[in-house]
């Protein structure tokens, strides 16, 4: 039902939250163009999807960020991966399909035979098998799930990556907080940001390629680049004398981020990666993209989304799964192994999911259709426990037994696991308070470390 608490201008509070220290002047009653320092820096991040604060913070805040330097890899299998052929197999039952279940590194836990690599490292992640969501269409479902399906308040909520960029900002690396590795086109993708505004969008690397203009122009040497940037900063500095410094800072900030990115061109150079790693992740798109995700996370990006498309197996599901799931299994296992080996899983949350699962019923097309009723999501790392299986479906895999978890619960769990503080659990949209996740949902306690 469409209903909402809508916009209202409660300006004083907005200003306070934006870090203004002095009492607002009675006339100073608008929030939208009151460029406080923090707001501007946030906005500076703009377009790059670098929404956040970066190296320009007061030391105290920077210190806090460092301590909580949690990161996220979010793997999105667009179209809907079949839970019955992956995380929650029901072999030898009416809807079980042809595949076997195999034992995993977690005693007593089986997953689909198409995921032998993940089975070996399953203790590095957890599975929630009792996910129950509300939408069985792609057109609405993709957005609803990515936004955590909050209560409708008449605004477009941000996708998870934009939300994390907003709530946590970039890490100390100075790299944009929200990067997106995907097939097809890249660039500055702002749609994910919703009401947070374009600045919290994603910097997308289309098929792993760098964004436009990232390569230092051939006319410019590295020395010249440094020299011209110093001179630019000097002019900007002079301009800010007798004027607010915020605009100068914001402008400098985006140049700093650009410079940081330009210095990491190696991230886009596959030849920098060992042949062995490339084989372990697989040479296909999803393998290459997940390998890139690992490197971006190592470089300090806050949130990396990896997309894979064409998982919508309405027809010929079992052959499709046989072709598709191994493309996920191998790099996913390699990713968990690598993060674990580097001791990064304590700080990096890895999530793999789709907009829904697939119907237990196998249609005449030997396919499975959309099934939000009972499906599975893999997650673990940072403050989310690894090696646990939460919830279960009934014998036929048709419905959840006991407690169902909606994506709102998952959002709560993730934010908690990432250390988002209680007071940050509400956005301020021009005075309209908006809970960052569905009001009626709560974190899954068993998953919180």
């Amino acid at each position: 039902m469409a209903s909402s608490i809508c916009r209202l201008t409660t300006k004083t509070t907005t200003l306070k939250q934006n870090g203004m220290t002095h009492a607002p002047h009675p006339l100073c009653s608008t929030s939208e163009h009151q460029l406080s320092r923090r707001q501007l820096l946030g906005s500076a991040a703009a377009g790059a999807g670098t929404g956040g604060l970066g190296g320009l913070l007061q030391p105290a805040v920077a210190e806090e960020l460092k301590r909580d330097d949690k990161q996220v890899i979010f793997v999105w299998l667009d179209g809907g991966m079949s839970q019955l052929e992956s995380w929650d197999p029901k072999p030898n039952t009416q809807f079980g399909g042809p595949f076997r279940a195999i034992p995993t590194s977690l005693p007593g836990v089986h997953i689909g035979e198409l995921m032998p690599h993940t089975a070996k490292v399953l203790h590095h992640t957890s599975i929630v098998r009792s996910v129950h969501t509300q939408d069985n269409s792609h057109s609405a479902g993709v957005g609803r799930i990515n936004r955590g399906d909050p209560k409708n308040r008449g605004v477009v909520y941000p996708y998870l990556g934009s939300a994390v960029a907003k709530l946590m900002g970039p890490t100390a690396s100075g790299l944009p907080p929200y990067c997106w590795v995907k097939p097809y086109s890249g660039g500055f993708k702002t749609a994910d940001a919703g009401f947070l505004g374009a600045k919290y969008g994603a910097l997308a690397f289309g098929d792993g390629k760098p964004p436009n203009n990232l390569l230092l122009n051939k006319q410019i040497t590295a020395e010249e680049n440094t020299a011209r940037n110093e001179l630019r900063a000097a002019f900007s500095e002079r301009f800010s004398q007798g004027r607010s410094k915020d605009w100068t800072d914001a402008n400098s900030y985006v140049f700093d981020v650009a410079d940081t990115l330009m210095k990491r061109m190696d991230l886009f150079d596959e030849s920098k990666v060992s042949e062995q790693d490339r084989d372990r992740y697989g040479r296909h798109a999803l393998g290459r993209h997940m390998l890139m995700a690992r490197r971006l996370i190592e470089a300090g990006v806050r949130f990396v989304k990896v997309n894979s498309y064409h998982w919508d197996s309405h027809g010929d599901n079992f052959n499709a799964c046989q072709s598709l799931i191994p493309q996920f299994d191998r790099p996913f296992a390699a990713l968990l192994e690598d993060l674990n080996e580097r001791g990064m899983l304590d700080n990096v949350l890895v999530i793999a999911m789709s907009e829904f699962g697939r119907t237990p019923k196998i249609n005449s097309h030997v396919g499975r259709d959309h099934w939000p009723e009972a499906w599975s999501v893999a997650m673990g790392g940072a403050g989310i426990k690894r090696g646990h299986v939460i919830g279960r479906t009934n014998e036929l895999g048709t419905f959840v037994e006991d407690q169902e978890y909606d994506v709102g619960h998952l959002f709560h769990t993730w934010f908690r696991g990432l250390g988002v503080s209680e007071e940050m659990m509400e956005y301020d949209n021009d005075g309209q308070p908006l809970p960052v996740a569905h009001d009626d949902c709560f974190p899954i306690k068993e998953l919180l470390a």
Partner: protein
Amino acid sequence: MNEPHKRDRLRLAVKRRQECDVVLSCEQSLPRRNLVVRALLCNLFIVLLLAARVSHAADPVHQQIDRLIEAKITGPVAPRSPDAEFIRRVTLDLAGRIPTADETRSFLQDDSKDKREALIERLLSGPEYATAMAGLFNVMLMERRGENADWDRFLKTSFAANQPWNELVRQILLPSADNEESRGSAWFYKRRLEKSGQQPTDYAGLTRDVGRLFLGVDLQCAECHDHLMIDDYKQQEFQGLFSVYKNVSIRNEKFPAINEKSITEKLEFISVFGSEHQVTGPRIPFGAEFEIPPPPEEQPKKKPDPNAPPAFSSLKLIAANLPSPENSLFCRNSANRIWFALMGQGLVEPLDQFHSDNQATHPEVLNLLATEFAAHEFDLKWLLRQIILSETYQRSSRTSEETIEGTYARARLRRLTADQHLASLLVATGNLQRLLPSESEPSEQYTELQKEFLSAFAAEPKEPALSYAPAVKQALFQLNESQFLNLLTPQENNLTERISKLQPRDVIDECFLSIFSRLPTVSERELAIDQIPDNEASRAARIQRLVWAMLTSIEFAVNH
């Protein structure tokens, strides 16, 4: 206003909203504004309007503005802007670009007392005025939804003729396919009626935009129920306007055009919080409902021509009554948006949140501008002139003293629109002639540069471009984009070629005049002169570095 109290009330409402069943009682517990009061306020406005019509003998409006603004300033006030600051600011506002070095030089050398007034008049009657206004209002009204040549022509011819603002709006609200000059005005509707992917036509979005842009009210939340926080925003205000736009469709023509169907019965709607069916005929938000005439008794047997005007056109009623001097919301919203464009701050903000709980920072100024604008028959040039002539507009953005935000004690920094920024780049680097010898025939190079520039600097489609929004992609563009860097290569008498043979001191002055529209300070001259070596071999490269650093500094990127 007791802000904490309001916040509490909001929180309470949020909580109540969560307990859906009690929302109605919560709603009722909010104080309801008496409709009679609103009606009285409206009448008062008309009285003021009439008064304005007979009080022409009073002080010029710009002086009245200054008096009202200054009365509320506490604390320090910035001095009047230096001439250089003023010429840059006003040229950006009225010509859509920075002044050329020559224009600045001669303005600085001009000793006449009324040179600012003369400059304003020159710009208002200059050839670039219409282009600048078309650019400004295109971005304001279309929010980067895409360009259209007919629409562009409509805007430019309208502004060139200084067509009254309300007439211009009227043509947008009731486009006519028959008038070749103005038919592009349908682009406002047509573009919004286009389907995006599999989404159905967004009639609600169009309804919302008409409210936002022409009346300053964002009724989005009132689509499904009375606004929970804003007493004034009732569902019927939205639905009444929605009933009009539901009957508008795209007409298949090579130019933007629409068709309208007759409304034959009232629109039935229901609040998501209630079960009571309500009905409304077409209405302008906060205005009276229009009567729907009974349909003609004899139904034509033939299939009617879809392009024929409807028997009952509610668009006609909207167009006749919305942009009128009697519609206070229209007048105040228009004045507020133009004030915002020139001052970087709205008297009411957010710009689309006009309601009785969101008073203007300077209600008297808003009323003055609204009534006088209407009284001057919505003469846009008149309004621009009055604001620009005010000391408030002409204050410097720089002062060493702490002024209080929002009081207009100093000029606010404003973002350059992407179009102003690009045009200024070409002017500053002396490449305008080469790339854009005439506006009607842009060079291929220009079109390509414009495309790349806008993709880096323009706001996203459907996002109002209101505040400064630096972005990494803009930085990357300025750092590495070849077409941009190419503007700095000496060629065809552009800036870097022109100054290549000058003495270092003159190089610096010419750069400052061309790019920052001012002369350097002593310390800046020292900073810059170090950049220019005597060594011929590296000289050209160092000049380019200097020009690049100035162009990419914050000073160039803002209207200050």
